C-alpha cells in the first residue's frame, strides 16, 4: 500500500524513454530510406510528376437561314497564354514576351503579379485573337520561352454592321448572376453562352460540350505521356425560318430609320424577316466589351439593344381600326353604320378631331369600307362608343393583343389592351367612357408590339387564324429539345365570310389612289394593308413645345399582306418619328415586292419536274400571209423547266 506521494516506478519511466527513442529511430530510418537511399528515384518521379489537363474547346453550332445559307459561323482564334507550372521566373521574360505580342511590358508584369496567388496549374491568359506574326513569335520562341503557349478557341463570326443583330443575339461569358439561376446551374465560370436573341434561346442546342485531354508533362512542359482524352461534342447547327433574301430587303428598306420590321407567314407563324433599329454590332461583344461601350449602348436614348419587333410597346394608331372593324362587323353594328365626317365630333363633352382636317377637307359620308381605306377617325370614334371598351377588349384579346405571342425569343413584352377590369386592377380607378373613344383609333392606353400587330392583322386577313410566331421550326430541332412555348401553334377564330371579304377588300384599297397609302402601290401585286400614325404625346403638349422636338413626332405604322385573303406574308412596319403611315407603307411595300419577285422566279411545284412541260399560248400577230395585222393565233409548245433556282444571296453580308 502506498500513498499519493510514492513515486511512479522509475524503471517504467526509463522504459518509456527508451521506447520513445526506438520510435524516433524507426522514423529516422524511414527518412533515411527516402531521402538518402532512394533519393534519386523520387527526384525523377518528381520531375515527371505533372498531369496537365488541357481543355478541348467545342465549336458552337452554326446558324442557318431557311434555305441552309450561313448566317452565323465560327472562326478559329488563337489566344496566347503563360503557363505557370515550371519554376521559371516569369517576370524576367516579361519584356521579351511583351515585345513579341505587342503588349505593354508593365501590363504583362502586372498580370503575372496579379495571378501569383492563384493555383499554379492555372495559366495566365495574355492576349486573345493574336495575329499571325504573334503566333509565329510564340512558335519560334519555344526554347527560350517554354512557358508561353497558345490555345485555339472558336469565336463567333456575325454579319457585319449589325445585320440581324437583335434576332441572332450575341454570346459572352456566363456571368455570376446567371450562374446563380437554376437554368445555368450546370455551367462553369468561363463558359461562353448566348446572351440574347436566338443565341440565348437555343443555347442548349448551339453550345457544344468541351472535352479534355490529360497528359503527363515534365519540367520542360513537354508531354511525355498521354493519359486519356474525352473528345469535345460540337454544338449542333440551328436552321431558322428566316429567309436571308427578305431579311436583306427589309434591312435595306428600313435603312437608318429608327423602328422595326416583322415579316411573317400568317399560315404557320414562321418569321421570314425581323429588323430593329438602331442596331449594334454583336462582333463587338465577341471578346470582351468595355464598360464604357456597354453603358453607352445601354444609356442610348434610342435603345439600340432593344429588339423593337418584340419589345417596343407603342400605341398602334389607325392600324387598330382593322380590329375595330372586325369587332364592329361581328357584333353586327358596323355594316349598317353611316357616319358623316365633318372633321371631328363631340363625345362626352369633348371634341375629337379627325386627321383629315390636316389636309383641309372632310370625309363626308362614310361607311365601313371607306372608313377603312380612308381611315376616318370619326367613324371609329362612333363605333367605339357603340361597342364599349369591354367588347373591343374582347375582340382585341381574341386576336392576341395585350398578351405575349409566345415567340421563341427571350424577353418578349405583352403590350397593353385596356378594359374596365384592367383599369380597376392596375389603377384602382373606374374606366371612363371617354377613354374608349381614343382607343377606337388606336390611341389612349392601347400598346402593341409589331409582332402582335402582324399576327392580329395577318390573322384577320386569313379569315380568323391566330398562329404562334417562331424563328425555328420544332421539326428542325434535335429530338430531345422541348419547344419554348406553351401557347398553341394555331387557333381558329370565327369571322363571318362576308365580313372578312368586306374588310380585306377595303384593305386592298389602302395602297391605291383611293386610300391613305397611294404612293405604296405595287403594280401587279395584290397588296392590301392598313396605315397608322400614332401620337406619342397629346396635342396640347405638342403645341406647347414649339417646333416639336423630334422625339415627339408621331410614329408611322403599316401592316400589309399579300394576297389580300389567306395571305402568304404579312409585313408590319414601325417607323418611329415617321409621322405619316404612308412612309411606313412604302417601306413595307419594298419588302413585299422582294418577296413576290422571289416567289415568281421560283418554279411552281407543278413545274418542278424533270419532264418537259407542255404549255399553250395565245397571241396577236400578223397572219403568215401578212393580211390581218391582229390575227389571233394559238399553239402548243413544249418547254424545259429551269431546274436551277437563282440564289439571290449566298450567305449573310460579311460572312464568307
Amino acid at each position: 500500500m502506498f500513498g499519493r506521494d510514492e513515486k511512479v516506478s522509475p524503471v517504467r519511466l526509463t522504459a518509456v524513454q527508451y521506447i520513445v527513442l526506438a520510435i524516433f529511430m524507426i522514423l529516422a530510418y524511414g527518412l533515411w530510406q527516402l531521402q538518402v537511399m532512394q533519393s534519386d528515384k523520387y527526384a525523377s518521379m518528381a520531375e515527371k510528376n505533372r498531369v496537365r489537363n488541357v481543355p478541348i474547346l467545342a465549336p458552337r453550332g452554326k446558324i442557318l437561314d431557311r434555305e441552309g445559307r450561313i448566317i452565323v459561323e465560327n472562326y478559329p482564334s488563337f489566344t496566347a497564354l503563360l503557363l505557370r507550372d515550371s519554376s521559371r521566373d516569369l517576370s524576367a521574360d516579361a519584356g521579351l514576351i511583351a515585345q513579341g505580342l505587342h503588349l505593354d511590358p508593365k501590363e504583362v508584369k502586372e498580370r503575372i503579379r496579379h495571378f501569383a496567388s492563384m493555383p499554379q496549374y492555372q495559366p495566365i491568359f495574355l492576349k486573345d485573337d493574336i495575329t499571325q506574326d504573334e503566333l509565329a513569335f510564340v512558335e519560334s520562341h519555344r526554347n527560350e520561352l517554354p512557358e508561353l503557349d497558345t490555345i485555339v478557341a472558336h469565336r463567333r463570326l456575325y454579319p457585319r454592321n449589325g445585320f440581324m443583330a437583335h434576332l441572332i443575339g450575341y454570346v459572352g461569358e456566363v456571368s455570376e448572376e446567371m450562374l446563380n439561376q437554376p437554368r445555368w446551374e450546370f455551367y462553369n465560370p468561363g463558359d461562353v453562352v448566348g446572351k440574347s436573341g436566338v443565341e440565348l434561346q437555343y443555347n442548349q442546342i448551339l453550345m457544344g460540350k468541351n472535352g479534355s485531354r490529360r497528359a503527363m508533362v515534365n519540367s520542360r512542359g513537354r508531354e511525355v505521356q498521354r493519359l486519356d482524352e474525352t473528345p469535345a461534342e460540337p454544338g449542333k447547327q440551328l436552321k431558322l425560318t428566316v429567309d436571308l433574301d427578305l431579311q436583306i430587303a427589309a434591312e435595306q428598306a428600313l435603312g437608318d430609320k429608327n423602328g422595326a420590321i416583322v415579316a411573317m407567314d400568317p399560315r404557320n407563324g414562321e418569321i421570314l424577316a425581323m429588323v430593329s433599329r438602331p442596331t449594334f454590332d454583336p462582333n463587338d461583344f465577341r471578346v470582351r466589351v468595355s464598360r464604357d461601350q456597354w453603358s453607352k449602348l445601354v444609356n442610348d436614348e434610342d435603345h439600340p439593344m432593344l429588339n423593337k419587333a418584340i419589345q417596343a410597346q407603342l400605341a398602334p394608331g389607325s392600324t387598330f381600326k382593322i380590329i375595330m372593324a372586325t369587332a364592329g362587323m361581328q357584333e353586327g353594328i358596323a355594316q349598317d353604320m353611316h357616319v358623316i365626317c365633318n372633321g371631328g365630333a363631340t363625345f362626352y363633352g369633348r371634341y375629337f378631331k379627325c386627321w383629315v382636317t390636316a389636309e383641309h377637307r372632310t370625309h363626308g359620308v362614310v361607311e365601313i369600307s371607306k372608313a377603312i381605306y380612308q381611315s376616318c377617325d370619326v367613324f371609329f370614334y362612333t363605333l367605339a362608343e357603340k361597342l364599349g371598351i369591354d367588347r373591343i377588349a374582347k375582340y382585341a384579346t381574341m386576336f392576341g393583343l395585350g398578351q405575349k405571342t409566345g415567340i421563341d425569343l427571350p424577353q418578349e413584352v405583352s403590350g397593353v389592351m385596356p378594359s374596365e377590369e384592367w383599369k380597376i386592377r392596375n389603377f384602382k380607378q373606374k374606366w371612363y367612357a371617354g377613354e374608349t373613344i381614343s382607343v377606337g383609333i388606336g390611341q389612349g392606353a392601347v400598346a402593341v408590339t409589331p409582332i402582335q400587330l402582324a399576327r392580329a392583322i395577318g390573322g384577320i386577313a386569313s379569315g380568323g387564324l391566330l398562329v404562334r410566331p417562331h424563328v425555328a421550326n420544332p421539326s428542325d430541332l434535335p429530338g430531345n429539345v422541348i419547344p419554348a412555348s406553351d401557347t398553341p401553334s394555331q387557333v381558329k377564330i370565327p369571322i363571318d365570310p362576308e365580313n372578312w371579304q368586306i374588310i380585306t377588300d377595303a384593305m386592298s384599297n389602302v395602297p391605291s389612289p383611293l386610300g391613305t397609302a397611294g404612293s405604296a402601290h405595287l403594280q401587279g401585286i395584290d397588296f392590301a394593308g392598313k396605315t397608322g400614325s400614332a401620337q406619342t404625346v397629346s396635342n396640347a403638349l405638342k403645341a406647347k413645345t414649339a417646333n416639336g422636338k423630334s422625339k415627339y413626332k408621331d410614329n408611322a405604322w403599316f401592316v400589309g399582306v399579300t394576297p389580300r385573303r389567306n395571305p402568304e406574308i404579312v409585313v408590319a412596319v414601325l417607323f418611329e418619328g415617321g409621322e405619316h403611315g404612308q412612309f411606313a407603307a412604302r417601306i413595307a411595300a419594298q419588302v413585299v415586292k422582294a418577296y413576290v419577285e422571289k416567289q415568281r422566279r421560283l418554279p411552281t411545284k407543278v413545274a418542278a419536274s424533270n419532264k418537259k412541260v407542255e404549255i399553250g399560248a395565245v397571241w396577236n400577230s400578223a397572219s403568215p400571209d401578212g393580211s390581218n395585222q391582229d390575227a389571233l393565233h394559238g399553239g402548243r409548245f413544249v418547254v424545259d423547266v429551269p431546274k436551277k433556282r437563282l440564289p439571290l444571296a449566298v450567305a449573310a453580308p460579311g460572312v464568307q
Partner: protein
Amino acid sequence: MSRYISFRDFDWLLFIFLLLICGLGVLEIRSATAHTKFAGAHIKQLYWISGGIAGMFLMSLINYQKLLDGVHWMYIASIASLLTVTIFGQKYLGARRWIKMPGGGHFQPSEWVKLILILAVAKYFADLHQRELSWPDFIKAGAIVGVPMLLVLAQPDLGTALTYIPIAVMGLFLGGVRWKQALTVVVLAGLMMPLAFHVLKPYQRDRLTSFMQPEADSQGSGYQVIQSLIAVGSGGLWGSSAGSQTHLAFLPVPQTDFIFAAFAEEHGFVGALTVMLLYFIVLMRLTQNAQTAPDRAGTFVVMGVVAVLSFHILVNVGMVVGFMPVTGIPLPLMSYGGSSVLFMFLALGIVMNVRMRRFVN
C-alpha cells in the same frame, strides 16, 4: 502549505525549444502556401501560437492539484459536450464534430476532452493504492478512456478517437498493469479487427489499406501517400531548392497534415532530422519533469502529455514516410490548425504547472 512559486522555475529551456519548433512550422507554412489560395495561413498560425502561449502561462498559474480535485466535474462536462455534439452537432464534411456557438464560432469538444482525459486518468491512477492493477481497476481505467472514445468514434472521427488510446496505454503501463491484462487487450483487439474493419466507412478502409500499397490506387486514396513520398524523397540530403512538389500543388493541403513532408522536401534529410531532434529533446525534457514531479499525480499528468505528443509524432511522421496510414492527425505545433496548437500549449501549461511546484510538498 504556503506555496511560493516563481517563474524562475518555469521551464524556460523547454519553452525555447517549443518556440523553435513553432517558428519552423510557421516558416514552412508560409513557404508551402505562398502560391496557393491558402496564402497568409502563417499569419493565422502566429495568432494561434500567441494565444496558445498566453494560455500556457495562464495554465501554469493554476495549481494543478486543484484541477485534479475538480476533475470529476470536468469529466462529466466533457461527456456531456460529446453527447451534445453527437445529438445536436453540425454536420460538416460528413462528420459531426462541431457545435455552433451562439457567438458564431465553432466548438470542437474532442480536443478539450483529450486534456481532461489526461487529468482524469492521472487522478485515477494516482489514487490507486496497489502496485499492481486489479482486474476491476483495470476495467474501470479502460472505461474512463473508452466511453469518450466511443462517443468520438460515433461522430465519426477515427483519428481523434485513436489519440485517446496512448493516454490509456501510458496510464496503464505506469500504473502497474499486469502482463495478463495487457495480453488480454491485445488479443481482444486482434479479434475485433475484422469487425472493426467492417464497421469502418469505405474511405477509412481505403486509407488503411492504401498506405501499404499506394500504387494500387494512385489517383484516389493512394495519391496523398505517393505524393508525400515523392516530396520527401526528392528532398535528398540537403533539400530540394525548387520545392516543386509542394509549390506546384502536387502535395494537397500541405500546411496541415503533410507539413512535415513539405519541410522534408525543402530542407532534406538534414533538416528533417533536426526537427526530429528538437521533438526528441522536448520529450526527454518532459520526462525529466515527470521524474521530478512532487507527487504521483504530477508524474502521470506529464507522462500523459508525453504519450499524446509521441503518438502524434509517430503517426504523423510515420504517415509522411509511408509507415502509417493517412489519418488526419496533425504534427504538434507545426501543423496549421487552431485547436491542435491551443491544445498543445494548454497541455504544456499543465506540465509547466507541475514543474513549477516540484519543490513544494
